[in-house]
């Protein structure tokens, strides 16, 4: 215990220099701006900034990316409150009560609630990172190949089921992503799969160009197609959070923090699911349900706390299993790999100091977010009013640089364009994007562990079902798929109902 506190202390002390604090400030501010601008998302921000930071020392680079991530998720609420358009998908829920508050002339109060909820949410999630990660990492060390295989499949299934919309389309998107991950040289014989003689394709599909395409280019196209946004007001009342609001809704804050962190830990779901789940739970438990959707302080607080608690939550599976909890966490994980940091069960053994540094980074980013939330209101309002006709071409230029810069291949720009088109079309067809990106990330984990487990068992698939942990994961995965079929769900409910009636 004392040793851990000492490690946390030295991790914090390591960041207390002028240059690092300056880095924290510009990165968090940039993150808030990225999040606030409709069309720019946290995933895109983290993916693009990976390019800018890959010549930095790894500790500073990850610090910048975490500040961008934390800032962007918070920044999305600005446009949600003032424009009724969420800056990031995570802030969609905040429009429900944030915008009505702004229309009542309470935009400043809404932003104050958003700031306090978001700050407390990230703090709660960070506390969970500090306490849960060591236990989960220890549990992950007992996992064998069969368990890792099921973790990958479960990730796709749960992301497909819960990331919004149609689970069937989520599974399709996830398995499409898994297939894309198999393109290029395979690990055993260096055979070039689906390359059709192209040396570029044989090199594989980079995660970052795909992310920039699916979340950047597709967003540019969507923003240009959609109608232009207008701000609800140009005058803002006081943005100072009221202690009374926080004290009155402390139960909501704790509940939303716990839900947000839990959703974050589940692979691939992310902040939007966390915000909607926290909002729904708060509404169910509320004594003032009628205010929801008409400018409820509690509703806005729950959404903001949930989405912001999800950020640290999504980092927990990255650190323990090398499985991202959200799309921006996938970009963060890719950045860690580029910087020779190997996330996963061995991280706590090989580089335990990095875990403590991550906790310190989250706390510092959260504090910086609070500072900007209280001070930079008017400049952010001006930024929000930049017309998309001027903003989007600049965003596309940055996307091009971001896709190219990691490996300096023009081919990666074409990959970005391809995934931009695929992302746009699939979204129009109501496919969620998170499972596809998760499939791309988990493809290697799934394949290597499937073949390793088969080699160890000499081709038998029994260990996938007979090992206790593996069998449990398999059962949960299969149950999740079955539960997503409405007729199967009804049959299970009928069966359970009959059983209960008989036992009564």
């Amino acid at each position, binding site marked *: 215990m004392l040793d851990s506190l000492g490690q946390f202390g030295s991790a914090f002390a390591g960041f207390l220099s002028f240059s690092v604090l300056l880095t924290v400030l510009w990165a968090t501010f940039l993150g808030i701006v990225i999040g606030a601008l409709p069309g720019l998302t946290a995933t895109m921000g983290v993916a693009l900034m990976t390019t800018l930071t890959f010549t930095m020392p790894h500790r500073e680079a990850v610090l910048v990316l975490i500040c961008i991530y934390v800032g962007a998720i918070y920044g999305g609420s600005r446009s949600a409150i003032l424009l009724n358009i969420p800056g990031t998908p995570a802030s969609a829920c905040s429009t429900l009560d944030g915008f009505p508050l702004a229309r009542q002339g309470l935009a400043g109060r809404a932003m104050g609630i958003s700031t306090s909820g978001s700050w407390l949410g990230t703090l709660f999630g960070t506390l969970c990172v500090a306490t849960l990660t060591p236990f989960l990492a220890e549990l992950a060390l007992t996992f064998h190949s069969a368990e890792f295989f099921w973790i990958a499949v479960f990730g796709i299934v749960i992301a497909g089921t819960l990331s919004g919309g149609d689970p*069937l389309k989520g599974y399709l998107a996830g398995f499409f992503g898994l297939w894309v991950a198999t393109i290029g040289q395979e690990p055993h014989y260096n055979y070039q799969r689906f390359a059709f003689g192209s040396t570029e394709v044989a090199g594989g599909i980079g995660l970052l160009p795909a992310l920039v395409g699916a979340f950047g280019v597709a967003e540019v196209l969507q923003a240009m197609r959609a109608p232009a946004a207008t701000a609800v007001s140009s005058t803002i009342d006081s943005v100072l959070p009221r202690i009374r609001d926080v004290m009155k809704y402390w139960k909501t804050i704790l509940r939303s923090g716990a839900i947000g962190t839990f959703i974050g830990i589940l692979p691939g779901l992310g902040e939007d699911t966390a915000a909607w789940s926290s909002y729904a739970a708060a509404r169910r438990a509320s004594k003032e349900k009628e205010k929801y959707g008409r400018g409820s302080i509690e509703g806005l607080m729950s959404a903001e706390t949930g989405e912001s608690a999800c950020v640290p939550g999504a980092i927990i599976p990255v650190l323990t299993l090398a499985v991202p909890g959200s799309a921006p966490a996938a970009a963060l994980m890719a950045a860690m790999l580029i910087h020779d940091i190997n996330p996963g069960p061995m991280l706590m053994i090989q580089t335990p100091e990095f875990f403590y540094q991550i906790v310190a980074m989250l706390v510092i980013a959260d504090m910086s977010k609070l500072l900007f939330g209280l001070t930079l209101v008017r400049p952010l309002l001006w930024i929000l009013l930049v017309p998309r006709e001027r903003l989007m071409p600049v965003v596309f230029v940055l996307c091009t640089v971001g896709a190219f810069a990691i490996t300096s291949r023009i081919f990666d720009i074409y990959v970005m364009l391809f995934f931009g088109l695929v992302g746009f079309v699939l979204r129009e067809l109501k496919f969620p994007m998170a499972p596809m990106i998760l499939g791309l990330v988990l493809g290697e984990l799934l394949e290597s562990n499937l073949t390793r487990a088969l080699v160890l068992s000499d081709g038998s698939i029994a260990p996938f079902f007979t090992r206790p942990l593996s069998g449990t994961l398999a059962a949960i995965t299969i149950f999740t798929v079955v539960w997503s079929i409405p007729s199967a769900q009804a049959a299970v409910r009928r069966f359970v109902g009959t059983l209960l009636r008989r036992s009564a």
Partner: protein
Amino acid sequence: MTETPPSSVLPHEEPLPPRYDLWTAAVFFCIGVAIVWLAWQMPTYEEQQGKIYTAPGLVPALHGIVIAGLSLWLGLRAITRGALRAGRGQERPPREGYSDTRLYLAAALCLIFAVGLVGRLPFWLAAAIFVFSFTTLFEWQRGAPARERVRRLAIAAALGIGTGVVVTLVFERGFLVRLP
């Protein structure tokens, strides 16, 4: 107001006519079958004592089978929901304020920049031309006074040159990143 978010925010909240799902299923089915067929053609390396479970085509084939199976499920579900029935409800209702012309113009400009200009011109110049053209075309208003047009052209030019120069300086000089 309800809990349903605005359609532009979470488009998957709006139901899609079943015929769209049928076409999507057909495309995914073709992709799944093509993956399985291509995976089947891959060598198994049995002559090098390779086992079937380390064959390069095994995992992609499994993915292909799942994709084909899921797309069949999607297609059958679309049919049961009336995808083959002619008449109303098969076309997507137009969304207010959305413009396909703007979409195609943006896509064309992005394509020209990424495929036609990048790598052929110095990056700052390619970026400047792209940003200038994009902003000018989208902000152009027929019948606007000449003075207003000149003002918008000046803003677009400043934005274009500014983007080209700032991106080049920040990425290449500041962060030592190679530009295309």
